[in-house]
């Protein structure tokens, strides 16, 4: 099975699920729905635009909004910033999860996102 292309919405969701340890579909459902992850991705794009509008220059400074039904759509962010975007979505998804009590891990991911896009380093 080929590695998912993280430049697309579907590939990004796949990588997010890996980091969330939510790849088991044996029950027929994931723990985190695709809709909720895409909602978090859309919020991530808004936050990324606020911090780094230059990353949206190629898109005419428009913030894209993704549809869970269209997983093959390109995210449209420069490849080097895709890991940061994944960290944000993972962090936000975990922050919403009050059953797993993963607040520290969630904050860690959100902090990595901010440090990556603004400072360029992960410390």
């Amino acid at each position, binding site marked *: 099975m080929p590695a998912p292309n993280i430049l697309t919405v579907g590939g990004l969701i796949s990588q997010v699920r890996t980091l969330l340890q939510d790849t088991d579909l044996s029950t027929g459902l994931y723990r985190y729905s695709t809709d909720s992850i895409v909602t978090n991705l859309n919020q991530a794009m808004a936050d990324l635009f606020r911090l780094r509008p*230059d990353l949206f*220059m*190629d898109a005419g400074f428009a913030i894209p909004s993704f549809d869970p039904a269209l997983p093959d759509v390109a995210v449209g962010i420069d490849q080097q910033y895709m890991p940061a975007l994944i960290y944000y979505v993972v962090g936000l998804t975990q922050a919403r999860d009050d059953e797993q009590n993963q607040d520290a891990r969630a904050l860690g991911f959100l902090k990595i996102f901010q440090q990556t896009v603004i*400072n*360029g380093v992960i410390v």
Partner: protein
Amino acid sequence: MSTPASPWDRLYNDLKLQIPGVIDAVQASVTFSLFKDFCDKTNIWTEEVPILAKPNTYSYVLLVNEKGAANRLLLVYDPASAPPNKQWVQGNAQMQRPGVLTVSFPPAQDTPWMAVVAKTPSDPTNAEKYPDMHASSYWIIDKYREALTFGILARLQMMPGKPYTNAAAAKTNNQYYISERSKARTDAVKANVYGGQRWVYPQSFATISRNGAT
């Protein structure tokens, strides 16, 4: 991310090595604006534009053929008076609107003139969003790559809230850029001749009238 075509490839690579985190669109945009400043301040990118001067015609559109846009009028001379004695055909030739030559004294009969203009890059850019240039001008990018590198680094490092934001380095790089830009301007004035001058004699001491000659 991909390296643009010549003549921008080496410059692109030099910058990528020093500015991690910058995206291609931003690098191309800053390169365009910096190169525009470089050309404006140095008059390094020139083109000779032929004109057919006509009686009773005071205004001529200068059509550059080798890309870019006319930015400054350097000289209007009569090709019939061969180099090195290129002189203004007359005084008060102007280009108040870039690309439009105006003269005060049209010739008495159709006369070919040559306008020398300094250019700056203009839209449209090339396919990679870098300044579009004719191959005959690629030498500018090659010769002044250091200057352009310093200038682009400075502009990128001056941007707030980026992984490459660095006010101290920006200041230093800007100083290097201005220094290198000054050298380029001198090169342009002296036509790359060591200790030389491109004109024959200072115009203030000219013995030939610049008024109304055809």
